[in-house]
């Protein structure tokens, strides 16, 4: 029977060894990982803000605002010749499988320039039709604004609104429609802060 400190020592040595290995790996990969994250963000922003309206890198031009729950929200801004032409920020909808995260792009005049689902847990084959990889359903919001259609029409058809639900799924599209409407309302409330030139 070995004394117990031997076991402690062995476990300690293994922890130190593998801990060091991970620390070194982290050191080597951290810069690349950060770079990739910025690229990913850039790509997802490029889908909701058309290239033609800006000459800056929206990932680098951010404003921090407080949302309805008092949480900090990062607003990415697209500028052209020093004027803000559009903004993009993350909005949340409640779907069938929990939270749906979306990136919403809004032009300075309040029109939607694009919206994409970035993360969700909707049922595969039903609710996941909000992904552009599956259907182009979500692109129908491009060009719409709070007055077009009127606020009371920002619902799915089943509830008397103007947006199609998909067969078998009502909760997911409803969650998305409401999230976009709230997102546009947020834009209307915070327009001055979002568009002011610094």
């Amino acid at each position, binding site marked *: 029977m*070995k004394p*117990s400190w*031997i*076991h*402690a020592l*062995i*476990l300690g040595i*293994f*922890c130190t060894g*593998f801990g060091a*290995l*991970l620390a070194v*790996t*982290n050191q*080597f*990969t951290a810069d*690349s*990982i950060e770079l*990739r994250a910025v*690229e*990913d963000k850039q790509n997802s922003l490029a889908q909701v803000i058309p290239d033609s309206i800006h000459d800056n890198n929206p990932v680098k031009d951010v404003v921090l605002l407080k949302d309805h729950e008092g949480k900090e929200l990062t607003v990415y801004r697209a500028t052209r010749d020093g004027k803000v032409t559009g903004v993009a920020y993350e909005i949340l909808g409640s779907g069938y499988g929990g939270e749906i995260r979306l990136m919403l792009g809004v032009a300075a005049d309040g029109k939607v320039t694009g919206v994409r689902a970035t993360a969700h847990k909707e*049922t*595969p*084959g*039903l609710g996941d039709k909000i992904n552009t*990889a599956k259907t182009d359903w979500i692109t129908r919001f491009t060009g719409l604004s709070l007055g077009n259609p009127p606020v009371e029409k920002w619902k799915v058809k089943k509830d008397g609104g103007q947006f199609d639900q998909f*067969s*078998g799924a009502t909760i997911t599209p409803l969650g998305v429609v409401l999230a976009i409407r709230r997102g546009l309302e947020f834009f209307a409330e915070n327009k001055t802060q979002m568009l002011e030139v610094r």
Partner: protein
Amino acid sequence: MATSYRTIIRDGLWDNNGVFGMILGMCPTMAMTTSATNGFGMGLATAVVMAASNLLVAMFRGYITQEVRIPVYILIVAAMVTLVDLTMNAWMHELYKVLGLFIPLIVSNCLPLARLEAFAAKEPVMPSLMDGIFMGIGFTLSLTVIGAVREVAGSGTLFWDAHLLLGPAFSFMETRILPADTGVLLAILPPGGFLVTGLLLVVKRMLDLAAGKEIRMAGAHSV
């Protein structure tokens, strides 16, 4: 008592297969087999971790005492998973975007831990590495088959999105077998995972019985 490579390969791929022989690793099996491509990706990531951790444990087993072996094994599996996660995120980012979701799940898979305890802790380095590789390949095949059955039944496609995982050259694998929107949705929902895995297990056992093999109890290992 070195096990022959023949036995290692046959055990990993069929006789003592992780999913259909030992019924281990059910969490990632159920979660990631909604399509053949997903199952294949999860299996591949697991195989890498299994090969690496089997190798490491076989190398260090002389220094690991009985009392602390389980924490050390868990440490090794977790370290390998993190290592794979970080490296892929940094240098194989396109692949990471597809597989990234699966990689942390490997820690919740008890199959690597079971092989460390049942094989790598007792066998020499090379057989242990082979065991990790072939148990991993067997796991990959099982997940791909379950994924294929669920995908064909549920979505009517086979190997859909394979180009995201394997590169554009593999988009020829993507086939539509049933017309769109005709699938049995149940197959890709969680209950479908249990049903399909159960049915495939029946098929494997029937094949074994027909071949006159003795059916081993789940969890029994060959060592």
